[in-house]
């Protein structure tokens, strides 16, 4: 039990740092498969965080949520996305409107902005400052990815990262939403990803490319 | 000591007459030059005694002047006087043969008459102890340097550049005069002692205003971006020895003025002073060296590097102001030590580089490095001295530039102990200074590599010969200073720290902070031992042709040019240069068989477009509006006088 306690403690202390690393690596990544793997790693870190908090607060609900997270977000969704990437046979690079260096600079600024923004709330909320900042960073990074990456698949990944951030923020401030809502959200996500996968094939078949910036011609 | 000081200053103003009198005979001219050199050496000795031994000297000439006019030599003044003399003496030595060869008749006489006057005005500036003496010398400096620039000719373009120079110098001087006048209520005679007392009793608003005026006024003279517009126009136009003096010494008088006002008379102030100075130093440092990289005219390149080094000095000054504002005088002393030592180092290696440029011009009649090459074999002493100058300006260890840059770095590191945001901003400046150093290394590898190494790129460079002995001797003296200060800086550091302690109160520097000065000689010994060991392992040497991929012969056009060398950096920093490219193909119809293709590329300077043009437009528009006041109607003018009378009466009533 001492080892488990030690592991839980270390997880809670270092999850924020690891999330920052994944976020920075996602900004600098050049291939879609790298982004998918980093997303899976992010979800794994959040799952570990849930498990650690479950152990510390002794809540069986949390173990269930962690299980669902693991199955859906760490295994199923990344696998589905990789399957889509392979089936599409599209070029595997992340076409971005900012170079990797510029993206890393912007994401660094977002990280600092998150710390700056949550400053006034720290007296009210008795939470770990780092993890809350990490959550806000995930939300902002997800939004940034959606804005700067022009491939349709990257929009999906950006949305997933954003959802990760919201989930983590809820987890840290209120120790999670009720179990039913959690499960509902997770299955929603799963359905959303499959639907988006279908649409991506549709877009590719109709327009012969996946570049979101070229879809401007759809206006009337 | 006092008599020697009086004699030195007086002879600088007497020598011009001797130069005019001796203009006919070559022998007489040589005598005057030697006398000039001896006077400067005497000045260096006077300054050395003031700097190392702390002896003071005073010369009060208020009886002869309408306002209080006095010169005084305290430790800080002695340091700057030493700087002036130590640089001017070799430059004079260099000028002897240089001026003889390149100038004749009236221009030569003017040159030899104006040089001592120019130096004399600078001496008056750094030893002034009343505001009137300071400003007297300040304006004379501008005047005499303009005269020296005119010695080289006055075409339309030169007059335009000279006009810009005089204009900006006057604008700066106006700000400095305003700054001094703000001391008036507290110090009626405007003597520095009274001003010091008034400064400590001043209100913060007045102090801030004073700081801003002094910063802008001295910044324009020193060449901070964006007030540096005149530097790359004026410095290349002057004869090489004069460029050496202008870049090496005249810019330093601005640093002296700023240090005197901000640290001595005002005693430091609010933290935002430090941030402003740091920002100005960072921008000047980075932009200065970026513009230098794109140049291939040697003197313009060196002029931009002066901007960069002034930026580095201001980085040190900004750190010192921040430390003073946060109550850490020991670290402020270290930062000031780095900044002031960098002024000395810059004076020495910049004048060395300009003298080297003069030597190159003397031998090959061109200063465009794209036309040079292979000069190291033909001019070994010049090349070696120039190499030492290059290593010093880049800030490589074992040369003097590194010592001052290290101290500025060390003070940035110490900034992490202050309160936020200084605790993050000061270490961040480490990155800025490292970037500046890296860019300078790239630029000078280009300059030395293209000009001195490889094959000659023109007939002039192929037939270059070594310069006469006095010119070589002058460069060797300056190069020796670079190496000595670089390897054993303790000689200069200890008295300089004592000089700084006269106006920055606090505990003397810890031994630990100056331990660096004791480690450097060991590093030098290690490197020298290794070099000797490896060089003396004599091996057989065979001369062959350069590898040309099997081609029969390489010619000089296959080498990298200066433009080619700087291309990768210019591409990365294209936002700064915003180049415009024009490619013309003749005849325009036939794409595959043109008779000629011309390619022209030009850089645009963003500060001119973004800052000066709009400001100029606003001022001209304002002038247009004000012109409406000039109706030409006499009765309207009488109305103006009547209205002024009314306003005065009402003003007196309500006052």
């Amino acid at each position, binding site marked *: 039990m001492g080892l488990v306690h030690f592991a839980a403690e270390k997880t809670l202390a270092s999850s924020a740092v690891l999330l920052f690393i994944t976020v920075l690596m996602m900004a600098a990544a050049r291939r879609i498969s790298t982004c998918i793997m980093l997303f899976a790693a992010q979800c794994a870190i959040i799952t570990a965080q849930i498990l650690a908090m479950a152990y510390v607060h002794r809540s069986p609900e949390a173990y269930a949520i962690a299980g669902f997270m693991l199955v859906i977000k760490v295994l199923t969704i990344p696998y589905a996305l990789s399957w889509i990437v392979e089936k599409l046979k599209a070029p595997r690079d992340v076409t971005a409107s900012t170079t990797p260096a510029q993206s890393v600079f912007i994401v660094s600024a977002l990280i600092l902005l998150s710390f700056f923004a949550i400053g006034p709330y720290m007296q009210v909320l008795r939470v770990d400052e780092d993890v809350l900042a990490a959550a806000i960073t995930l939300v902002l990074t997800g939004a940034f990815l959606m804005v700067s990456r022009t491939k349709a698949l990257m929009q999906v990944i950006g949305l997933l990262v954003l959802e990760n951030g919201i989930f983590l923020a809820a987890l840290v401030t209120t120790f999670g939403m009720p179990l039913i809502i959690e499960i509902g959200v997770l299955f929603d996500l799963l359905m959303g990803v499959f639907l988006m996968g279908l649409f991506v094939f549709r877009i590719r078949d109709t327009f012969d490319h996946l570049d979101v910036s070229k879809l401007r011609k759809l206006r009337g | 000591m006092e008599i020697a000081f009086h004699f030195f200053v007086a002879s600088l103003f007497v020598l011009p007459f001797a130069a005019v009198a001796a203009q006919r005979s070559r022998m007489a001219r040589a005598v005057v030059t030697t006398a000039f050199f001896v006077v400067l050496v005497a000045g260096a000795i006077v300054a050395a005694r003031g700097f190392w031994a702390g002896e003071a000297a005073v010369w009060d000439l208020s009886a002869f002047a309408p306002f209080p006019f006095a010169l005084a030599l305290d430790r800080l003044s002695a340091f700057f006087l030493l700087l002036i003399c130590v640089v001017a003496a070799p430059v004079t030595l260099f000028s002897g043969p240089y001026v003889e060869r390149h100038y004749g008749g009236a221009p030569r006489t003017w040159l030899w008459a104006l040089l001592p006057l120019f130096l004399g005005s600078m001496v008056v500036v750094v030893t002034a102890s009343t505001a009137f003496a300071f400003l007297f010398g300040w304006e004379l400096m501008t005047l005499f340097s303009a005269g020296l620039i005119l010695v080289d000719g006055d075409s339309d373009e030169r007059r335009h550049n000279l006009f810009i120079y005089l204009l900006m110098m006057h604008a700066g001087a106006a700000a400095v005069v305003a700054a001094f006048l703000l001391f008036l209520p507290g110090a009626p005679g405007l003597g520095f002692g009274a001003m010091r007392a008034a400064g400590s009793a001043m209100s913060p608003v007045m102090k801030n205003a004073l700081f801003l005026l002094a910063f802008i006024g001295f910044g324009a003279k020193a060449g901070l971006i964006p007030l540096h517009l005149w530097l790359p126009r004026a410095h290349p136009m002057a004869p090489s020895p004069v460029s050496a003096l202008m870049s090496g010494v005249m810019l330093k008088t601005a640093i002296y003025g700023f240090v005197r006002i901000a640290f001595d008379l005002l005693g430091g102030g609010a933290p935002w002073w430090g941030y402003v100075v740091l920002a100005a130093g960072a921008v000047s440092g980075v932009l200065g060296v970026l513009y230098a990289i794109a140049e291939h005219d040697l003197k313009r390149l060196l002029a931009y590097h002066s901007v960069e080094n002034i930026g580095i000095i201001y980085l040190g000054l900004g750190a010192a102001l921040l430390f003073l504002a946060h109550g850490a005088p020991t670290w402020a002393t270290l930062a000031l030590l780095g900044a002031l030592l960098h002024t000395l180092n810059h004076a020495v290696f910049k004048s060395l580089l300009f003298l080297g440029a003069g030597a190159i011009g003397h031998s090959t009649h061109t200063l465009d490095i794209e036309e040079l090459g292979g000069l190291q074999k033909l001019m070994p002493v010049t090349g070696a001295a120039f190499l030492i100058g290059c290593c010093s300006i880049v800030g*490589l260890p074992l040369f003097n530039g590194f010592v001052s840059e290290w101290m500025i770095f060390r003070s940035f590191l110490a900034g992490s102990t202050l309160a936020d945001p200084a605790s993050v901003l000061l270490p961040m400046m480490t990155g800025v200074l490292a970037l500046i150093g890296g860019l300078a290394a790239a630029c000078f590898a280009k300059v030395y590599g293209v000009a001195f190494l*490889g094959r000659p790129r023109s007939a002039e460079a192929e037939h270059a010969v070594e310069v006469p002995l006095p010119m070589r001797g002058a460069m060797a003296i300056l190069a020796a200073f670079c190496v000595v200060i670089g390897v054993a800086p303790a000689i200069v550091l200890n008295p300089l720290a004592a000089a700084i302690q006269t106006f920055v109160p606090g505990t003397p520097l810890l031994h630990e902070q100056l331990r660096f000065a004791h480690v450097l000689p060991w590093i030098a010994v290690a490197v020298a031992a290794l070099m000797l060991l490896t060089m003396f392992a004599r091996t057989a040497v065979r001369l062959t042709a350069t590898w040309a991929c099997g081609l029969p012969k390489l010619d000089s056009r296959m080498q990298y040019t200066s433009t080619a060398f700087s291309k990768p950096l210019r591409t990365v920093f294209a936002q700064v240069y915003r180049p415009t490219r024009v490619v013309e193909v003749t005849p325009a119809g036939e794409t595959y068989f043109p008779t000629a293709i011309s390619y022209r590329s030009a850089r645009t300077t963003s500060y001119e477009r973004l800052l000066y043009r709009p400001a100029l437009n606003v001022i001209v528009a304002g002038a247009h509006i004000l012109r409406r006041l000039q109706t030409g109607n006499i009765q309207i003018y009488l109305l103006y006088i009547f209205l002024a009378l009314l306003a005065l009466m009402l003003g007196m009533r309500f006052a």
Partner: protein
Amino acid sequence: MTAAISILQALLLIVAAPLVRGTIARLKAILQNRRGASVWRPYADLLKLFRKEDLVPTTASSVFRVAPRAVFAATVAAVLFVPVLHAAAALSLAGDFIILVYLLALARFFLMLGAMDGGSSFGGMGASREALVSTLAEAPFLLSITAVAIVAREMSLSGIARWSLAQDPSRISAVHVLAFAALALVAIAETGRIPVDNPTTHLELTMIHEAMVLEYSGPSLAWIEWASSVKLSLVLALLVALFMPWGMMASPSALGMALAIAAFLLKFVLLAAVVAVGESSIAKLRMYLVPDFLGVASALAILAVVFTAVMR
């Protein structure tokens, strides 16, 4: 006693440098399904080169022969500042990492000059590219070490190593992670490894470091090759001393010395393996993408410095 150990660790780095290079080459060969040369091959190369004569182009000046020796002297002088076996280097003072970085800059400056002296296009090309890479790599190099120094409140490499030895290895510090990432990227750029430069290429258009030494032969080339090996092991030793110094001995003793040398060998073999795996799995970057690579390093280093105030 401590002085003797300090000198010994410097000599160890200098003498073992070609071995590190040979190990990386051997591991790369194994990963690429080849047999590869023996790990002692670089020593044989150096001996062969020392016995040959120096070929000097007719257009070259004295700088051509002085440059390789200056490069070697400056790189070896930089080794004196790095703690390897115990947390005290031969020379150490507050702010010594600045001297180290600038000694490496001195070596690089002379290498560029020697390259331009050959009078061929390749020398100029190599020098111009090296100027680009080194300019952009200096800022993150200094900033990342500065960040670590600020957290440790020690401004010398030996001091930082001492502080790191006393820390809990299982605690992850954001500043250290960011600084390590930045310094690792800079290390790749400084030592001229894939993805910045290919040390084993034969195509002149893809060379940066190799193009600068194209004209050199015999003992001059030997000094340069040895200096670049020493630089590689110096940078690796720097990474070890700053971020994973455990194993260094606290006080001189025979057991401690054996442990320290074993730890040193183990860590170097591990880092060599990481370098070899990295080089075999990533493609070399186009030259105009290298500034982007170094831009990422700069962003990480700046973030590390800012984090010293944020996550205090």
